[in-house]
């Protein structure tokens, strides 16, 4: 039994500690917002937060994150999620949408650390997340927009 805390809920999962976190989240906890894209930490579709840090769940053995705070797209706290999701909507970012939960999780981790990222910082944080529909220019704009609305709210 491995004890996990996902989106604030405690779970005990009967799996071997080497199983990647992604498949525990998807197949055992049935949270399917976190996507499978490559299985090799190459595309970012599986991005979740582990203790606040953007983490590729497809290569993270579940045993390594026992007892840590895991957050998936379904449990993204509103203070992080809302500005991004609003900006994603305003910029009409998603096309097929498959990579977008991973994109948003990566962007949320970036903004949590760096509320006003420059383009180069966005490049660094987001270039691990592939989008085959090519929504990159809109993702970039949406992150800037979310940063703006978040900071505007912070200053109020």
């Amino acid at each position, binding site marked *: 039994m491995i004890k996990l805390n996902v989106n604030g809920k405690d779970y005990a999962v009967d799996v071997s500690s080497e199983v*990647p976190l992604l498949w525990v989240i998807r197949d055992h906890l049935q949270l399917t*917002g976190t996507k499978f894209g490559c299985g090799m930490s190459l595309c970012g579709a599986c991005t979740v937060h582990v203790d606040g840090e953007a983490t590729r769940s497809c290569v993270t053995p579940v045993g390594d994150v026992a007892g840590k705070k895991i957050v998936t797209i379904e449990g993204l706290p509103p203070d992080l999620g809302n500005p991004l999701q609003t900006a994603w*909507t305003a910029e009409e970012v*998603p096309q*097929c949408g498959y990579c977008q939960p991973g994109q948003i999780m990566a962007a949320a981790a970036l903004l949590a650390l760096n509320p006003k990222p420059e383009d180069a910082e966005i490049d660094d944080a987001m270039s691990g997340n592939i989008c*085959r529909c*090519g929504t990159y220019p809109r993702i970039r704009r949406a992150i800037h927009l979310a940063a703006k609305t978040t900071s505007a709210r912070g200053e109020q």
Partner: protein
Amino acid sequence: MNGTSIDIRRRNFLKASAAVGGGLILGFYVPSRGAEIAAAQVPPPAVEPNAWIRIDSNGNITILVAKAEMGQGVYTSMPMLIAEELEVNWDKIRVAPAPAAPVYKHTVFGVQVTGGSTSVSSSWDQLRTVGATMREMLILTAAKQWGVAPETCQAKMGLVKHSASSREADYGSLAEQAAKMSVPQNVTLKDPKDFKIIGKAVPRLDTPEKIDGSGLFGLDVRILDMLIAVVARSPVFGGTVKSIKDDQAKKIPGVKIVAQVPTGIVVAADDFWSAKQGRDALEIVWEEGEGAQLSTEALREQYAELAKAPGAVAHKEGDAGQALSGAAKQLEGVYEVPYLAHACMEPLNCVVDLREDRCEIWTGTQFQGGDQNAAAAVAGLQPEQVKINTMLLGGGFGRRANPHSDFVVEAVQVAKALKKPVKVIWTREDDMRGGYYRPLWYSKLAAGLDEEGKPVAWTHRIVGQSIIAGTAFEEAMIQNGIDGASVEGAADLPYAIPNLLVDLHSPKNLVPVQWWRSVGHSHTGFVVESFIDELAAAAGKDPYEFRRNLLAAHPRHLGVLELVAKQAGWGQAPPAGRSRGLSVHASFGSWVAQVAEVSVDKNGQISVHRVVCAVDCGRVVNPDTVKAQMESGIIFGLSAALFGEITLKGGRVEQSNFHDYPVVRLDESPEVDVHIVPSSERPTGVGEPGTPPIAAAVANAVFAATGARVRRLPMTADRVKEAMKAM
């Protein structure tokens, strides 16, 4: 798929079907214009008890969309066509995927499919008429209830009004009765000047579920008692299982069944990871057969050899041979593009629940019609016993419209072998190595210029596999030895050159090939627009002026060319360190011109900073979608221009995942600046036409930057450096 624009005028069958669940259902059918794709012999469809519009008693309206949503925006554009005529508030509109049924056949292709950038163009008359007919039925219902003449009533914002008596009724209260109306014929469609929804940047209806993780893709489906399976497939195309040892695999906890299926060995387990561990533990000896001999290097040599002899003539004007030998200046060029994987973000997958008398399928498919028939054949059922649930597609790009329904057929075979509901998952490696690639193409060109630098002859010999050969569409679509999709964008060269010859060799081999976003245009756009640039350079002319002079008879080419030149600042100096390249290409009924701003470092590394794009796709339904599709097509094409290449050695595909099949990432993505030519012509395609011009725009910019001509994709740093050295 076919690139010609669609013009549907005939409407001869319109019928309402029975009400389901108290709402109003309308079925509507436009017969196929004919033989552009297989399904030429479309039988008149039976009237189905389902269709396009459902209105509940609260006035909420659900539009069933027969097209697959794979990012191109049909879950918004299709409802827009209906809502415009229906006279409703956009916030009342919901969307649901239509099932596979004859009523949802593509109005031109005659089979339920999403492809060829035709969703809007083929639905333009059909769905507006559906909306208008529904509106009339609601008016007739209200008029009857009030005992007034229908002409004195008006439909507006979800209400039918009779101003003379100050009465009004909302659609929700009328829907059930309206369902029983006989269907009015010859409804009048709006004058475009009265459009309230079409032409506006209406927000996409599928955004909310795509940003909170709730949207369900095929991979997310879970049904009762379902096993999860992976298949060990032959490492070479066409191989079969010779022998198998599975005792270790069966020992993996969670593994439930190991079985043989036509494509290999299936391992089914309670969860994906156990199934994959089980597959890794299999010991299989493969009978590889002749597929083991395949090598892309050998194919390139074979194609070069073939290109020495004339092929089947795709287009001929004048006498190109004679004009060429008499020309003041002659040019030659050999262009090559590789096999390409679609590499959709969502690897292939399919859920099947197979019972004795029915089969239910959940998958992201572009080809419900073909998949339904193929699944029925494998299951030993009738097509109507196969229910297809179209899930969101995590990318399609053509891969999910497989002419053999490969991933659906295999999943049904797996379900048959397991006798259990099952989800078959392909890993990224399975997906990358599973074939159905954009074909490898070899093009040999020659051209002649007269003393003023005017082209007098152009020959283009194309060598590559036909996508259609060996499919059910072969008979209908290959004419006189020409698969139109092999030469599209080349045989219809728009430039005014008096002597032309385009011919084709279609060698066969075991590598499965398929349409890949923009199909034949994905190679001809690069080749033609690069070689015309070579001609401009040889003539000592500006690439823009050179093209303009040769396109005088093509106003819509000129329209996008002039717009892109203006917006990109062509003729003015580019920003320091950057060079510009231009291209223009028509495909899927639309015209697109692009200017790429690039820089090239001394190692041959290309950076694409900015792309300016002009598009003429006729009347625009959703301008933001048009822009998004241009951005998307450009970045997709850029991945192929810079990185994409599938190679085979000893029959094995050498690439496996995104480390050895790289795609453009955010830090490599250019700014994209899209401009739309205003038009009142019929709408044409947008999903694909953004892709063909970009590789040439970049290659032409590389030429402008370095003087080196890169004639082979992808334009890796090594190849660019080599071309720079060769100067």
